[in-house]
């Protein structure tokens, strides 16, 4: 197949990045193609460090040939022979026997896909941190989002995609792409990863997968930490956003239980670089720890910390705490913070 044909197909299929940011794939490819650097890298992000998201693992477990096929197509498109699979250590341990022989096979064909095994963490999947890690530096974000196509690794530009995006590319190339995506569904009878229609509303997805709860619930979509919160009725209208995950919470869950989960996650996963995220998340966790059983949620104290994390954090990790907390407060409790 002609390479330009593939780019046209990708554009027509309206492929977007499945790491969460939903950036149009064909734009990334075109930008990389236009660069005159003699060396370019193709990198697959299989970090998947957020709680409640397991779709990349599922895809690698079941469709690793297609993921690598997507990588190889990208490498051919950019006329490069070197890339990285940046993979969560837990995943690699489970999938090594599947992945290693494939990579060996590609090596014989002249494609070098290096494995970079990362200690599982949320920050490890953040673009700048991932690139720093591959370069042997501390896993911490870089200055405000220079695109990896501008500042990649070892002085060379990088085409970076999530596992699912490479899978989608392979599907597009073989005309099998059907506007579906993968989503982890949790908090239901049959927890797991499902292939769902990209355009389906949350409630529809739950019904089609026979997971619609028979109890009162609210739902978090697009990540078990950073995902947005919707009520049962909002779930009829909202689509899957961010990285694919739908997590159901029983309505009885208390604010303390919900926020404790969120705050603990951010406190644990902050890389420790900047003030708002590092110290803000610790103070949030501490606020809940110091809370008496019967006392009210101290929103007036939570609010300024959430605000400063959202507006001032160095990278997207700290900023992303605002969406789940604000949408929970607004949609579930009816409080604007």
């Amino acid at each position, binding site marked *: 197949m002609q390479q330009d044909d593939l780019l046209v197909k990708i554009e027509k299929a309206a492929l977007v990045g499945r790491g969460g940011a939903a950036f149009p794939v064909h734009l990334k490819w075109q930008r990389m193609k236009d660069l005159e650097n003699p060396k370019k890298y193709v990198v697959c992000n299989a970090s998947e460090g957020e709680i409640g998201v397991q779709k990349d693992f599922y895809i690698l477990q079941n469709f690793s040939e297609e993921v690598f096929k997507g990588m190889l197509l990208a490498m051919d498109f950019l006329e490069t022979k070197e890339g990285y699979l940046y993979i969560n250590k837990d995943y690699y341990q489970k999938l090594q026997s599947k992945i290693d022989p494939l990579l060996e096979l590609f090596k014989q064909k002249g494609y070098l896909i290096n494995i970079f095994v990362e200690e599982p963490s949320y920050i490890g999947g953040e673009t700048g941190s991932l690139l720093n890690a591959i370069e042997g530096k501390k896993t911490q974000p870089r200055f405000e989002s220079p695109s990896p196509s501008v500042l990649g690794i070892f002085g060379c530009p990088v085409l970076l995609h999530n596992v699912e995006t490479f899978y989608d590319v392979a599907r597009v190339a073989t005309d099998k792409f059907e506007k579906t995506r993968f989503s982890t569904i949790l908090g239901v009878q049959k927890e797991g990863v499902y292939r769902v229609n990209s355009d389906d509303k949350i409630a529809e997805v739950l019904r089609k997968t026979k997971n619609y709860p028979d109890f009162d619930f609210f739902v978090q979509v697009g990540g078990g930490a950073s995902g947005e919160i919707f009520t049962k009725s909002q779930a009829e209208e909202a689509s899957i956003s961010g990285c694919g995950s739908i997590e159901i919470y029983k309505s009885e869950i208390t604010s303390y239980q919900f926020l404790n989960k969120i705050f603990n996650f951010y406190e644990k996963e902050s890389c420790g*670089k900047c*003030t708002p995220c590092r110290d803000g998340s610790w103070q949030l966790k501490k606020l809940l720890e110091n809370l008496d059983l019967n006392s009210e949620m101290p929103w007036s104290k939570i609010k300024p910390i959430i605000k400063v994390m959202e507006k001032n954090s160095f990278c997207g990790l700290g900023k992303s705490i605002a969406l789940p907390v604000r949408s929970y407060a607004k949609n579930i409790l009816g409080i604007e913070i």
Partner: protein
Amino acid sequence: MPKTVTIYIDDKPYQAEEGQSVLQLALANKLDIPHLCYHEDLKIEANCRLCLVEHENKVTTSCTLKASEGMKINTKSNELVEMRQENLKLLLASHTKNCPKCQKQLPCPAFALMQKYGVTSEEYERKMLDLAIHKMGGAAEFDPNLCVRCGRCVNSCADIGINFLKLEGVSSNSHLAYSENPKVDCIYCGQCTVHCPVNAIREQSHLEKVEAALIDQDKILIAQMAPSVRASIGEEFGQEPGLNLEKKMFTAFRQLGFKKIFDVNMGADITTVVEAKELSDRLRKKFAGEEVVLPMFTACCPGWVKFVEFYYPDFIPNLTTARSPHIHSGAAYKTWWAEKAGVDPSKIVMVSIMPCTSKKYESEMEKLSFEFQGHKLKPVDYVLTTREMAALLKKNKIDLPNLADSEADLEGEYSGAGAIYGASGGVMESALRSAAYMLTGQELPKLELEEVRGMKGIKRATIKIGDKEIKVAVVATARNARNVLEEIKHGKETYDYIEFMACPGGCIGGGGQPLTSTAAIIKKRIAGLYSIDAKKTVRRAHENKIVQEFFSYLADKPSLASKILYTSFSEKNKFE
């Protein structure tokens, strides 16, 4: 020349160099933008998140925002004030409660920010990491619990060329730590302490001991001040860097209760004479074709010496055997002056005021002690940094800039050569002024050796002495020292004499100097030192009458002379 652009800060136009950060421009124009992790000589970290401004309706850090034509910046919105305050509260949670420096009222940039922005530090609880204070020899120490993870110490340690300090761990457990690599050790230069905005990393205090000695009627307290201190301590009192306040300092020492006011500059003249003699001896041997270890290295900077003893022990024979200036003068005053004044030397407490933290470590070295009149004596008992001295003055409500001038006591008299010891190149210049005389019986035609002056990290020159040429180098910071030693090791360069200092610009940029210390400030201080030299009538160490008197006292005491003039060195292990 970089392109100039016009940007608008709070609707006022400013000329900026394209690519200059908005924070740099604001600071150059004395606009008030708070900042903790930013330091003009260090790499940008952008982690404190205090230097916030608004640009295109977005809150962003001004240290990372590059000036471009027509850019409009707001520094004063309510939201900015709120964000800065919140970050300051988070950063400095329980700061005043936990910081011993605050309680001692030592100057603290973080505390100044808190006062300015109405933050009490009581808003939030501090996460105590339960990590021990780590002591770097007898020089400095750090308390990871007080650290705000700005990274300035880590970056300054890297710039010096040591990489001993690092930030370790993630989330709120991220903390200051040191390298466990057995081949990496601190050299006690204290650059970390002069870059820490919160005193989490600081000198090991001798203040309380000095205060106790000052009220002990049985003791005779002698103050001796290093060359650099007089040209920098004014900064702690709002004066321009480089302003020579020595005469006011002499008055201040007396007001504090010091019995005698001498001078490390006099000690520097002793060092010059001893070192120039050794250099002359080594050069004579070389000229005669005899086997001799060259280049000779200076050894008056304990940070540099530790660097050699730990990283390059093979070069130990290259170090001059001359002791350092305050150790020379300390012992001179405890022997020669004590005998002359009829004073019991065991009652003397020598206090050195130094721009340095490694001098504290040096003062505690057992090998420098000596027997005299039946007593075992230390040349120097306590070392105060410039910062500690400023704190002591402030505590005693001594308003330094407005004091009357006075002179040091007679035995504190020094030459212009002693005065320039504080600047990188000064030791070399002083030694060559004397060595030329010792080798040829004639003075150098021109006293000022411009080639070895200035802030450059490595300066090389060929100096004509009589009909001979000697090749010299002047090196500042361990990073540059490593480069020069590697050159020598691999036979790429040969030298006769090299001056090494651990800190940028020499002692004047030392780890015990006032905060903030920057390359620009250090330059001004250096100018101050050279102007002292230029105004002196005696500008060669060997012509200093006091020094001559001291050496004639030692003339018939070879055993004492060998004990108090010379030292030896040995390979060091980590943490030694």
